[in-house]
């Protein structure tokens, strides 16, 4: 991928984060996007991480992951995952959620667990972490993928790690997922995608 396309991807994701919102960001590109957003147009965002860190300012160093505790330096609050995942994310105190979706299907289901069969996969990936919670509970969910590889966008993921609309939009409510949760937008290096009433992804805008 050429640098400018990647930069456009990062910037588009960052621009989806309005100033002064409470944002829950996952591992990898979401963290970087929140940092870019804070430096550009959204200095007042409050970023929360699954380990309980509340980050309300630009930290001196870029953390390599939410658990790289340079993210906690100067934090106004260090709590735990019960607060972050359930009291803040689950209870709707978080206004926006950003999750990486390296493999994602047309219903917005994200796979970060296995390619192939579960017990003897072709490729084993890291698993859920808090990603399942971000996708299950988070309001204003933005998915981001740096990939333009066709294999990153299968018709149906081999393993649902972080649920999108499962097999269709009705599934979430029926199974106890809350209204307002579920993916709203996917940003990748090609453009921006949204979800229709059946929970299926469509192209909303292509980068020029």
């Amino acid at each position, binding site marked *: 991928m050429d640098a400018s396309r990647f930069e456009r991807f990062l910037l588009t994701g960052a621009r989806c984060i309005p100033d002064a919102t409470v944002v829950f960001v996952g591992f990898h590109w979401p963290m970087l996007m929140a940092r870019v957003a804070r430096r550009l147009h959204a200095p007042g965002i409050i970023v929360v991480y699954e*380990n309980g860190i509340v980050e309300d300012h630009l930290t001196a160093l870029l953390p390599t992951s939410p*658990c790289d505790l340079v993210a906690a330096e100067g934090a106004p609050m260090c709590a735990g995952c019960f607060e972050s995942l359930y009291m803040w994310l689950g209870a709707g105190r978080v206004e926006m959620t950003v999750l990486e979706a390296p493999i994602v299907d047309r219903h917005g289901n994200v796979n970060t667990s296995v390619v192939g069969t579960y017990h003897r996969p072709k490729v084993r990936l890291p698993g859920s972490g*808090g990603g399942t919670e971000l996708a299950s509970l988070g309001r204003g969910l933005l998915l981001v993928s740096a990939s333009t590889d066709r294999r990153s966008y299968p018709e149906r993921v081999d*393993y*649902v790690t972080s649920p999108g609309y499962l097999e269709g939009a009705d599934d979430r409510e029926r*199974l106890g997922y809350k209204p307002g949760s579920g993916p709203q937008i996917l940003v990748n290096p090609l453009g921006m995608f949204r979800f229709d009433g059946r929970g299926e992804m469509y192209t909303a805008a292509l980068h020029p």
Partner: protein
Amino acid sequence: MNVREKPILTLQEAVRRFVPDGQELLLGGFAFSDPTAVAHEIIRQGRRGLRVIKSSGGVLVDQLIGAGCAAQLLSCHIWNSVGPVPAHCFRRAIERERPAPIAIEELSYGALSMALLAGACDFPFMPTTPLQGTGHFTERTFWPDKLGVVRSPFGGEPVTVVSPLKPELGIFHVHRVDRAGNAQVFGPLGETRFAMAACRRLVVVAEELVDADVIRGRPELTVAPSFLVDAVVIEPWAAHPSDSYGYYYRDLAHHALYGEMSRTEDGFQRYLEEWVFGTQTHSGFIRTLGDARVRELMTRKEPWW
């Protein structure tokens, strides 16, 4: 002060006494405060058949798997903490059963945490993330009863609940501890408080032993009271290469080094020879790391609390 003092063990003694072959063992930390020194000592003592529980597996679990110590793993995430580098041993074990197959059971981080909370409170279950439709709900390996669904007596949609998890043994990295076993942690906690309370037996591995009065000066930081703690180990830098809030930073270079060496089985063996067997003890490990590097990684050049 009349408090019951806890045995203060070396890391070797603690592993010898508390971790026999086949032990069920929760290792604390969540990609920070990972008690990596404990994993190294388990590898040195050649334990087999461990049933490992770890919220975020990282380098620590990868090494236990690569060294053939773990038969079974309950976790929610296994990866080299630094960016896109995989946990190579974990992948080899799952994808190709090298060096040996390993049974894996997974939950999301929220569900694993609520299982530990239920265990800590002796609740018969805890509500958790809906999870129906996900692979963790469907796939069940050695914990068939991990998740279930109930109807709420107050109406509404079905409610996913998770079983209580009460690990037979927990070993946690903490920042400081007194002789009675009161253990304190600074910074973010993840699931630490209730994971410690869920364990039937508990060993804490502390950066430093402090006077009881130091603990009493900041009683809000105590994550496990003395009466939950069975034994204490004092082992500075026990969480390296993960970070220890207020003590030392994550060692990114060592994560990268390990990621590179563990790419092949031979490379992983060389890592073990050089960094685990060759160093003999954790202080040997830290000597191998070198004073210059240790000073770079220290968050502050001298203790400040």
